[in-house]
């Protein structure tokens, strides 16, 4: 039996070879980006620590050890104890749970809600005019001020923090998806799909969305890191998740008062916070370079979305 003609075979082989070359080039670029790999490693560790906190922490974060108030780091208490005699190391480990919970929820909510609104705004001009006016207004607020106002008005809880930060950061997700949707709206492939009888929803979901989504993915990584910082800031101001739940920001606030006698109270949560934010920024930067090496956004420069109008 004769196989397919030679020319077809060659063409398909060529396509295959090309595709794998492109894939491996991406893989190589990924592996070459050591900064991003380091960031990814730290983020993975952070997620694992949060997931397995009860197994990793040597003590309960709420348990007071009598007679060891404000004791310096030792073999038994790696990061020392706080003024209630609680193990700071365990509290830092458990603190990651609030941080991950808020960061992950906020970046998920903003990506889904913002993505949905951005898709519609980019496609339907009438909707665009209304939504963008509202979002311009929301973006005019300094982010942290709006967040503290919302969490101050609602009952203090982790849900409140998530709601407040989602309101603050959703406009930035909308913006990032809306622009490429706007650009793709009249692209030839969209016209072609319409000629073939595709409806609006099919065009939006199967044609425009896949072609517009990469910047949004980069943005959600950055929103993750901003949300973590903002959560820590709210907790530091006493407007986040209320004590005694351990949060990194709250621990820094506790440590502030006794900083002179017990500086170890701020090292643990401070270093954890900086390390995780740095790692997420590295991942975001790397992801942007991988998905579109030419793109250059302000986010890439690390400007928190709260800084954009």
């Amino acid at each position, binding site marked *: 039996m004769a196989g397919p003609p030679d020319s077809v075979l060659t063409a398909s082989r060529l396509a295959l070879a090309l595709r794998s070359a492109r894939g491996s080039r991406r893989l190589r670029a990924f592996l070459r980006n050591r900064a991003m790999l380091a960031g990814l490693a730290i983020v993975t560790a952070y997620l694992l620590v949060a997931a397995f906190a009860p197994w990793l922490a040597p003590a309960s974060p709420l348990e007071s050890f009598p007679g060891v108030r404000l004791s310096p780091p030792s073999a038994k208490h790696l990061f020392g104890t706080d003024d209630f005699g609680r193990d700071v190391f365990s509290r830092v480990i458990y603190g990651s749970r609030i941080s991950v919970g808020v960061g992950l929820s906020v970046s998920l909510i903003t990506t889904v809600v913002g993505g949905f609104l951005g898709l519609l705004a980019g496609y339907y001009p009438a909707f665009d005019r209304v939504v963008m*006016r*509202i979002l*311009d*207004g*929301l973006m*005019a*607020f*300094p*982010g*942290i*001020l*709006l967040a*503290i*106002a*919302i969490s*101050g*008005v*609602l*009952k203090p809880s982790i849900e409140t923090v998530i709601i407040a930060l989602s309101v603050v950061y959703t406009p930035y997700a909308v913006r990032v998806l809306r622009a490429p949707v706007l650009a793709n709206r009249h692209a030839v492939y969209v016209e072609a799909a319409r000629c073939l009888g595709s409806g609006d929803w099919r065009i939006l979901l199967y044609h425009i969305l896949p072609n517009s989504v990469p910047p949004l993915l980069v943005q959600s990584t950055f929103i993750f*890191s901003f949300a973590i*910082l903002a959560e*820590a*800031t709210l907790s*530091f*101001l*006493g*407007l986040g998740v209320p004590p005694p739940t351990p949060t990194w920001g709250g621990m*820094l606030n506790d*440590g*502030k008062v006794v*900083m*002179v006698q017990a*500086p170890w109270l*701020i090292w643990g949560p*401070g270093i954890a*916070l*900086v390390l995780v*934010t*740095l790692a997420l*920024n*590295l991942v975001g*930067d790397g992801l942007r370079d991988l998905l579109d090496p030419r793109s*250059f956004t*302000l986010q890439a*420069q*690390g*400007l*928190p979305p*709260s*800084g*954009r*109008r």
Partner: protein
Amino acid sequence: MRTYLIQRLVALIPVLLVVATVVFLLVRLTPGDPAAVILGDQASAEAVRELRTRLGLDDPLIVQYGRWLANAVRGDMGRSLFFDQPVTSILLERVEPTVLLALYGLLLGTVLGVPCGVLAALNHGRFLDRVLMTVSLAGISTPSFVIGLLLAYVVSAQLNLLPAGGYVPIRRGLLGNLQSLILPSLSLGLVQLALIARMTRTAVLEVMTADHVRVAYAKGLPFRLVLLRHILRNSLVPIVTIIGLSLAVLMGGTVVIETLFDLPGVGRLAVGSILRRDYPVIQGVILYVTCAIALVNLAVDLVYSWLDPRIRY
């Protein structure tokens, strides 16, 4: 230029309307009765009723909204429940530390950040560039209050060089004022420095490879002049953009830094008012600060056309 200014001012109206509406809704969306929340659990029913009347909460929502807008336009934000003073006068008392803090922070970030960025761009890909960019990424990832805690611990607690809190007004001497604001402005400014350095590096890198720079070199202009006249001048617009945009970040930062360093500014007033449930003050602070930022951003846009004559409106 004139028409552009008018256009921009008109475009500001819907933004400010949304801002005012959000600030209004913020308090009205409180679960439960705002008056009861303000007064706390122990309040008598009579006190709650009295406060409701005082705040005008018994009127229909739309009437309250109309009154709020009309008052806001006239700059009347009501009276503080805690200080028993007009909100506007409380705010004016607190403006000085906040404005100076933001100004010093921005100054620090610009004066140090631009040279760092230029240096990194000129050494593109080399050791110095990598060091500067790694440090600036770390700077961006560090919240200002962690830097502030660190500075307070090292400089005030350990070295005993500067006060770790308190504020000296500028009319009681510039030196004392500067001393009381050095650590707070450093905490704020280091993040700005990192941002501005990164943006400057990008802008300079982009201009460095442009044709007109090659021409400047080709006609034998010394490096110093190429840098000053051709590279830096053309990099100014994106740098000014980032400075304008970072203003909101800066204002947000003052909230935390004022609380940390115990400065009697607008930011600490906001946090304190939220803890005291002093709703008129919260609303006033947010509305005024947001409007101020919107206006400064407009001013920044106008600076563009002065910096870059190619931008014509």
